[in-house]
């Protein structure tokens, strides 16, 4: 009890310490200089309508590559962490309800298509590789939940994951070699602003990101539900 009171007290102090962040902070009326540049020149420079996307994929592309790497590490980590131990006994998986199963069969292709749509239109509309990837992953997860027999083909998963990741990096190198810097999207034609096939390599990059993220997230969930004890 004393401990709990103590914790509340120190949290109180902590809150007081952080308070100026809210209190002394006056919201800005202007964009920051960097953001201003992005908004002003971004559409012309990169050809992406969604400015968030241009920031994510190109201006701060290295962050995004890192982000993909983080997910990748997490997937590899979970897989590594929950790897089989020497002793092995398997328990039968319980089946799920009929409704979920039939529903899934109907929904799965739709979800998948939706996911692809999201990441292909990342430079035009909200959303992108990550969101699309997550959507794809949720479809797979639904599949996993619905059917006792459903098993993810890990080889395919790894193949998709590896190749999409490697392609992402390769596109980055192309940017370095063909354009002005690593992850520069402008080695492809920027195309007509606002159309699907525009913004240089952004749709391509987002596609690979989407595939990779999807594969990684599926990998995480798959590892979590797999029996390995």
């Amino acid at each position: 009890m004393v401990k709990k009171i103590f914790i509340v007290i120190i949290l109180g102090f902590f809150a007081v310490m952080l308070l100026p962040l809210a209190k002394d902070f006056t919201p800005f009326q202007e964009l920051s200089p960097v953001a201003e540049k992005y908004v002003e020149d971004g559409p012309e420079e990169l050809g992406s309508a969604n400015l968030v996307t241009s920031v994510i994929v190109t201006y701060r592309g290295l962050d995004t590559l890192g982000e993909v790497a983080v997910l990748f590490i997490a997937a590899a980590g979970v897989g590594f962490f929950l790897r089989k131990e020497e002793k092995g006994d398997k328990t039968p998986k319980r089946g799920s309800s009929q409704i979920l199963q039939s529903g899934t069969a109907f929904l799965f292709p739709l979800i998948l298509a939706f996911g692809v749509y999201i990441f292909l239109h990342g430079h035009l509309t909200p959303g992108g590789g990550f969101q699309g990837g997550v959507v794809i992953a949720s479809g797979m997860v639904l599949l996993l939940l619905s059917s006792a027999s459903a098993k993810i083909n890990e080889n395919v998963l790894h193949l998709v994951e590896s190749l999409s990741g490697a392609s992402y990096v390769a596109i980055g190198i192309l940017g370095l070699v063909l354009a002005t810097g690593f992850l520069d999207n402008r080695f492809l034609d920027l195309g007509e602003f606002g159309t699907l096939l525009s913004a240089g390599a952004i749709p391509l990059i987002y596609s690979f990101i989407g595939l990779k993220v999807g594969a990684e997230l599926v990998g995480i969930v798959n590892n979590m539900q797999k029996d390995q004890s």
Partner: protein
Amino acid sequence: MVNPIYIFILALGAGFLLTLFDKAGRKVSLTIFYAVLAAMVAISAQWLIALLGGSETAMIFTAGFKPPFSINLQMGLEEAIFTLAVNMLGLLSGLYLIKKFNATKVNAMVLFLMMIMGINGLIMTRDMFNLFVFMEITSIATFAMIGIDRDIKTLSAGFKYMIASGIASVLFLIGTIYLYRFSGMLHIDSMAVALDMASSQATLLAVFILLMAIVIELKPFPANGWALDVYEAVDSGVVAVIAAGSSAGMLFALYKITPLLNETLLLTVAGIGITTFVASNLMGLMQKNAKRLLGYSSIGQIGLVAGVFAMLVYLGYPINGKMVMLIAGGLFINHFVAKAGLFWLAGILNKENTEDWGALRKKPIYLFAFGAFILALVGLPPFPSFFAKWQMVMIFAKDNQFLVIAFILLGTLLEAVYLFRWLGKILESEVKEKIKVSFAQGLPVIVATLAVLGLGIYSATIVPGAGSLNIFYLPLLLIAALFVLDFLPVWVKNTLVILLMGFYTWQLLPGLEGYRFLFGVIFLVGGVILLIPGYAFKGKRVGFYPFAVMMYTGLAGLLIAENTLQFFTAWELMTLGSYFLIIRGKKAKPHALSYMLFSLGGAYAMLSGLGLFFSVNGNNLDLALLSSITESTSIIYILLVIGFLTKLASMGLHIWLPGAHGEAETDVSPMVSAILLKAGMFGLVVVMSAIQNPMIGNVSINYVLSWLGAITVFGGNLMAIYQEDAKRLLAYSSVGNLGYVLFGLTLMTHLGWLTSITYALNHFLFKALLFLAIGGVVWRVKTKNMYEMGGLIKRMPISFISVLIGIIALSGVPPLSGFAGKWLTYNVLIEKGWVLQGVVLIIGGLIAFLYCFRLIHTIFLGQLKDNHRKVKEAPLPILIPQVIFMFAIMFFSAYPNMVLRPVGDFLIKYFPQGAINWQNGVAFTAFGHWDGLGVLMITGVVFMAVFGWLLLTNRKTQKVGQFNIVYAAERPSRPELTHVGYNFFAHYRKALGVLSKPYAEKFWDGLSELFHSTADFIRKLYTGNGQTYLVHIIVFILVVYAFAMGG
């Protein structure tokens, strides 16, 4: 040149594809894995070479936009150094882990690669948020990599790590986003320009929060319990990367955000770092678990680097300037290599308890590596930290940061306690099992050893004043050669060393002037003579010669040192060499430890003094300027003198000596006693001849020291009479004798110094003689307890004569040379009028008769023990130097003028008044006179006359058996019954009860106990509960906030 971005491209590309390659076989994936690591090394190495060659710092703009509009990476000299270090670490640790990589999933390799890549990113990126991303990459890869072993300890440690790290990343994010908004930038360099700290409380707070995130990742005390658990539990190969690599990345992050910090925050970081350094080393005192101990040391070292770095920046040194690079960089790289090496060793040995590391003894190479790492951590030459520490003290002293110096040196001393204790344990433990070291695990350790040595030598070439260090090059080369040639038999090495040292002496001596020549004779001629007993040893005597040469190098270095850097380097080399000589003794380990600690403590006092000297004389290293300083003279004097007094073993600082000298090997004891102690005197001579009569208020420091000298004589001699161990008796006697030396010097008169030098010379001669003779006896009878000996005169007559001459010279009985000192003592006492000290001093001298007699009586006279009936005379190589020293004593006794006159002549330079007036070998002072040769002749003639008379009147003397004595009307039959040896001067102890108690030991024991119990108390903070650690972190932040922002 290859674009550094390929480091990331390679790592990520390979990481992504490794799973696929693995399908083609583990060999393929392993090959690619190592190839990528090697390529990363190559890229950073190539950049380092180019940058050292004068290339411009490279900026890599991703996406082709200039910052602040896109993320950019930087490859400058600092980045090149850090990435090369990290990538090398990655390659070596990867190699180290090859067995585990082979046995587990391919994910391990992937994660490892990501971890290394993440650290590279931490170092190279110049974007704040990108820094966060790489921080997360590193941490998450580390969390996952921890799972390479999944036992409960590792898991719980990893989880605690994750929680703590989670808090840090939350703080980092908050800080970053606010800084972005206040500056409009994420590019760190532009941010620093754009940010106006004073604009609002929130701005300052944002910087503070960001700083705290990084500081927490740097494991500050006490918010670091989680880190300790990780160090203890996780696999050594991984921990090496965490302790060295991740810390490197985080330190670099701190380095990067430094431009954002104001003075208060810099001071805060300095305070945190140094507190952490002291506290974790304090707690290390109580630690038995090897890896946790290394953890404490790691945390401390990181704290030190961060603290010193912040302090330097605070003091206005340019952030990428030479000083920061040399000091903070030197300390860091030193820690980096040494700690990685130690963790690897921990994995090779796989022993939890530090006391079980004895198996290292079977592997000399790895033992050497261990020693090198430990010395590097403590900061002894020739390792980088030595030079870094040296320069740090100089710089901080220049800026009057003495409190900082004091704390850092205290922390270092504490660290030395447990590290040297560990080393000692290894060297003394019984080896039962053998360890097998695979190539993959051995190679990293060896590379680290070479690296730390190489970096040390490199540091030696860049430290200010480095040019003057060239005097050590050749000797160090010889030492290195001796390490390599250690497989040769002892006689070959001995001959080699004697010849080389003889040649060196022959070259050096004629060039020395005044007292330097005199000390040159003691140090070097004495050194050569005392190498002769080495021929008595069989086999290889591994590890003796390198360190013997190191000690003599140090001694010779003192003689020719012209600046303080040379002097201090020489001093530490001497200490180091002698430590390893002493520790060779069978039971010498704990004593060698206390020797080392006292020496280091003294050396640190000295270092502070030299730092102060450096600061007051206008940042000049020249030793000759010591005589012309006008400020802080007394403090410099005291600090330096404390340093020398520890070596001189003055009362209170003497407790290391009896054990260290007593337990050392036969020929080491005379070296360290007869020669090494004089180094302390040499230092005193240097200081005292430069700074005359310093005062504190109205009290003359020398007057105080004269009392110390007198008490030392009394105390040392009194303790000597109670010893049962012959060598310890001699050791305590040394304490007493060096008291005279101190006393004589403090008088600051011509006669006083002459007295002191006379005592020193005499002590050199007779103590070498006595230690050799007694050492020879111990060599044969295999015990040092005098009461177990007796009657050995019949078996070892030459040794007996040596001891006889030795004790006569020691006790100061005419006609031998010891009397010269006594006679001079009376003269200077009357001259100076310090008679009260004189009383103590002379009483102390009287007591010396008691142990002298005991020494010769209990060992050589009385009844011969049954088990010694077949004992032979000591080996010839031990006897030869004895004969030399006997002749030297006789010469000195007969012709004191031949020695003292030249000494007096050069003393005139310092003290023109009161010189001895020599008339045909007769010494005249204002008070009395002494004719050495005359006394010797008269005594000789009278002796011969009486002897002749006895021979004349004595007829047919019959030699009788041993037991032909009347003993309570019985004839005794067992020597034990009739040899009175044990507790010989019991009545003295009874009479002087209070005075005989070991106060100094009690004081130091009490101090040690105090430190240990404090350490034990503080470390109870680390309850093992992850939530408690979290509370620590938050309370830590609050407290720092209160300090940094509240005040």
